[in-house]
């Protein structure tokens, strides 16, 4: 671990007991999962549908008054945020597979997002959630663009990485769409020697273009043309809604993984991990932020990133209740639990991006 090493790793007996306590939290929660959770996700989907339809209609009414246009943009942004965060992200983690509903199924769900959902499922569900914050394994750490710890060498371009970060935030959905394609070096760079891709490189490329193309067609061709005299306002409204959504999702995700005290890991540390060690790494690699119920819902409960990393397939709206118990268990075993207000956490993200944009003061001595 390279940052905040004042907490040494607890011994394995402690971590085993710790794991048991966490398993207990998981199973008592899962016993409660049922009708209430089904109603909850269906209601969120209803709100998403109504705001999407309402938003698209309001955009067209923009010819009556610009207020309508603004309302349209906000409703459409809301719809996209709900679709991506509370619905898409969580459904694609398999949180609602037990409902046996083909439209709310982890494997089949497709979201209102430029990234092909199959590709996302591969690198997010597998890579990021299994190898969380292991440098070289979890490419979500810095996305290959940002230097966020001393584990990566400083390069002159890192000086401007706060701008890179802002750009990434604005174009976040494209970054997410491009992530696996970049990792596999489909368009440029040297091919990876080992690839675990279950599809061919060509299929990956086609999926990338077809999904991004579909999204482009929908928001920038189909709906603007459908509302023809309002072509430009509708196009602009869709564009703005996509950007606002991007800014929000990237902010949530940065607050969940790149706050000041987040730890990173080396592959050697994580070989043959026990369940307790795995839980421990997940906790040290994620951070929460606190806020109102709406903030939780709009962040897809990634405000409880710690709980999400511990229990990725538990219905997310159960996380806030679990968070209290998890925090208590962490306190019991003296394991750091990273949480704070939304504003605080975001400030430390910016701090981290700035901090590592400068070269290290002294060359870290290899242990």
């Amino acid at each position, binding site marked *: 671990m390279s940052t905040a090493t004042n907490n040494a790793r607890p011994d394995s007996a402690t971590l085993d007991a710790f794991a048991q306590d966490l398993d207990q939290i998981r*199973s008592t929660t*899962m016993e409660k999962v*049922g*009708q*209430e*959770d*089904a*109603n909850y996700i*269906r209601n969120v*989907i*209803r709100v998403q*549908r*109504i705001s999407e339809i309402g938003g698209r209609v309001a955009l067209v009414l923009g010819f009556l008054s610009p207020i309508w246009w603004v309302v349209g943009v906000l409703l459409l942004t809301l719809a996209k945020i709900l679709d991506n965060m509370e619905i898409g992200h969580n459904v694609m*983690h*398999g949180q609602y*597979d*037990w*409902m*046996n*509903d*083909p*439209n709310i*199924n*982890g*494997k*089949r769900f*497709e*979201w*209102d997002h430029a990234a092909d959902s199959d590709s996302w*499922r*591969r690198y997010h*569900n*597998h*890579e990021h*959630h*299994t190898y969380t914050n292991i440098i070289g394994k979890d490419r979500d750490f810095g996305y290959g663009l940002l230097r966020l710890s001393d584990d990566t060498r400083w390069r002159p371009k890192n000086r401007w990485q706060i701008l890179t970060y802002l750009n990434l935030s604005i174009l976040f959905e494209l970054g997410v769409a491009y992530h696996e394609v970049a990792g596999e070096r489909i368009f440029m760079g040297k091919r990876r020697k080992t690839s675990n891709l*279950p599809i061919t490189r060509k299929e990956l490329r086609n999926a990338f273009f077809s999904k991004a193309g*579909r999204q482009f*067609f*929908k928001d920038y061709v*189909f*709906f603007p043309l459908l509302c023809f005299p309002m072509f430009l306002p509708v196009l602009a409204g869709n564009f703005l809604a996509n950007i606002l959504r991007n800014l929000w999702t990237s902010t949530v995700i940065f607050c969940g993984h790149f706050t000041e005290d987040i730890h990173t890991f080396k592959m050697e540390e994580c070989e043959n991990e026990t369940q307790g060690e*795995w839980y421990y790494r997940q906790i040290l690699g994620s951070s929460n932020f606190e806020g109102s119920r709406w903030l939780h819902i709009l962040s897809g409960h990634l405000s409880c990133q710690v709980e999400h990393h511990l229990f*990725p*397939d538990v219905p997310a709206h159960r996380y806030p209740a679990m968070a209290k118990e998890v925090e208590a268990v962490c306190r019991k075993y003296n394991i750091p639990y990273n949480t704070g207000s939304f504003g605080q956490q975001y400030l430390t993200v910016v701090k981290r991006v700035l901090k590592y944009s400068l070269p290290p003061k002294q060359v870290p001595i290899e242990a």
Partner: protein
Amino acid sequence: MSISINRADFIHTAWRWLARNVTNNSSFSAYFEPLVQMFYTQWRADRFRSNVIDVRRESADMYSLVIKPNKRWQGFEAGQYIELTVEKEGAWVSRFFSISSSPAYFEQSGLIELSIRIQENGQITPWLPQALKAGGVVNISQAAGEFCLERALTPTLMIAGGSGITPFRSMLQQLARRREVVSQPISLLYYARSSEHFLFRNELKTFQQQLPGLVVHFIDTRDVGFFSEAHLLSYCEDFRSRDVYICGPSPMIVHARKVLQGQGVKQEQIHYEFFGPEPVSLDEDREASNVLFQQSGKQVTTDKDQVKTLLALAEEAQIKPVTGCRIGVCHQCICQKKSGVVYNSKTKTYSDTGQEDIQLCVSVPVADVVLEL
């Protein structure tokens, strides 16, 4: 003609394409489904939302659901089955059931009946009657299945075991209700554990009066044992010249087919239908279980002393399912279980017996499992 079909096809394809592109859902109905459900609970775009009119007790462990199918439902042929889907604690559960009433009855009353046996450890069959008592809503699929009486009726031998009587009741009721006289010989050998277990006894007897060629034998397995060569010869001597229909628990079907083929009945004369999943017991010392990989047509038997995950079993059988983390986190290895029970070693829970998605890398087979793989 062919042009208009192509045009319909084209419109259909274009419409689906548009739905996919504009809503990211498989169809417009799927997109609107949650909204429609606000007004019609349990409405499903791909099913027929139907009302349960009555739940009728048939015996200690059997009951019939009387259902009024949705108007768009297209009807059925005697002997066919439907998939029944209901919501239980937020989850959709589906089971296949033969329709036990006749098409003629449906035409007249608009109703169908499903006769269901309560499985002791089942999660669904004991629960359904309470859930639907006060007139509930269920979803049904279109009827399907090849287990039907052929139009031009030939001499027939029917062999029913337990609740396997249901499709035969439908067939016989259909013949009895049809105006024209049916005089072809039909023998029904109906096996049950004890005399209280014979369903529709009076109705079947009435059919004997209405259908001159029909002979029904109620065979109590406690008294005379299970189906055998001796039974064939004593109850239906000329069985070789008949079409044979078998329905009941799977071991019975396997056994009956073996006996019949041993007696020289040709394979194409034998029609059969498995009746529902078998009751499962979750005992500690369970028998070795079989895993059938449906698409690749491979079957493996698990070793009781050496517990292996379904993923390991599949890979040993040279099937390569998509995987990721192999520790139950990423959901890449999700696969549809068609039937059977698995134990999830991560959540420490047993699955239901019906169709559902499971994680191969952390699931262990408990009773015979059929996987889509």
